[in-house]
């Protein structure tokens, strides 16, 4: 319909001149559009809500399995069985400064008990690792299946830039391997061989280290990280590395 409408000359017909039928038709059109939209979400509110959640975390946790660890920090008593188990399983040299995991100590009146707290630390298997970015030879990389930051020791030239770059002091130079070494969630020594947890998590007598898979909603790590009753945090979030190791208390 190519009717030429001269808009400048159009007169306002006035609302009172619009017939009720015309008004009804107009409203029905609007309702039809909004109704389809609203009706869809109202009638299936629960399933769409869940779907939204599922697609959200599928993007957030892209690895399968998405290995992660949460530390129930208030339970740590510095028995260091985890360190012993790790050193034995992963052949960490008995040299000062050589560790894949260690326990930090903090004297604080905030601790349960009011004296000190012990904080286990290890490689956080960051989602945006600084170490892999600075490696000149690609000797370290984030595995695309499991998300673990792995070492290809044949390519390591010992420049130690990764060690400098790590905000968590997780890396050390292994003189026996002549390459940088760090925690790899016991991938080669345990997980790839069918074990379900790391040596440190297995050895802890106080249920401090909870190891699991963030891509599964019924996993214990997933539940602790996503619950809202007690605070869950990461170390040094300002570093922007998006760590995969979480801490909680209480």
């Amino acid at each position, binding site marked *: 319909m190519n009717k030429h409408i001269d808009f400048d000359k159009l007169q306002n017909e006035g609302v009172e001149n619009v017939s009720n039928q015309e008004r009804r038709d107009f409203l029905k059109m609007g309702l039809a559009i909004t109704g389809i939209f609203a009706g869809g979400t109202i009638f299936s509110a629960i399933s769409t809500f869940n779907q939204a959640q599922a697609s959200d975390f599928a993007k957030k946790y892209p690895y399968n399995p998405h290995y992660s660890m949460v530390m129930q920090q208030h339970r740590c*008593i510095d*028995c*260091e069985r985890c360190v012993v188990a790790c050193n034995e399983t992963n052949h960490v040299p008995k040299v000062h400064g050589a560790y894949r995991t260690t326990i930090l100590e903090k004297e604080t009146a905030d601790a*349960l008990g009011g*004296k*000190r707290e012990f904080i286990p630390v290890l490689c956080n298997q960051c989602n945006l690792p600084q170490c892999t970015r600075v490696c000149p030879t690609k000797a370290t990389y984030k595995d695309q299946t499991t998300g673990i930051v792995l070492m290809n020791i044949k390519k390591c030239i010992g420049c130690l830039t990764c060690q400098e770059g790590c905000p968590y002091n997780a890396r050390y130079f292994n003189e026996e391997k002549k390459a940088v070494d760090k925690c790899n969630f016991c991938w080669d020594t345990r997980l790839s061989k069918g074990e379900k947890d790391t040596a440190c998590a297995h050895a802890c007598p106080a249920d401090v280290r909870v190891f699991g898979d963030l891509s599964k909603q019924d996993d214990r790590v997933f539940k602790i990280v996503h619950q809202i009753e007690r605070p869950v945090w990461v170390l040094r979030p300002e570093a922007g590395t998006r760590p995969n190791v979480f801490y909680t208390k209480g």
Partner: protein
Amino acid sequence: MTIRTLLMTAVAALSLAAVTAVAADYPEAPIIYDKPVQGVIFSHKVHVEKGLACDMCHNRIFEQQAKKSQQNKDFVMESLYQGKYCGTCHNGSLAFASNTRCATCHIGVKGAKRAQGGDKAEHGEHH
């Protein structure tokens, strides 16, 4: 000698006796358990100074031999919660409950090193 000097001497003698009586021989150095976990401290001094007599513990609860208890397989926290060992008093009513204030006794490997080696063990250890 006047009565006054006599009385003062008596008081002095009694005080001396009292002081020497309180300085009973118990191990002054703290005992640090290493089984089943390392770094658990027990201080006789702290308990005696609260007024506990030797036979309050060394009657049935503990043997009078350092770290003898840790040879028992049941020397675990669960036993304490059931009133055994330290849990006899550390149940919340006589003394703080054994499932609270963990770091009071659990000084850890680091605490044990400090208690045994003195400050030189800590020097240079900074991560």
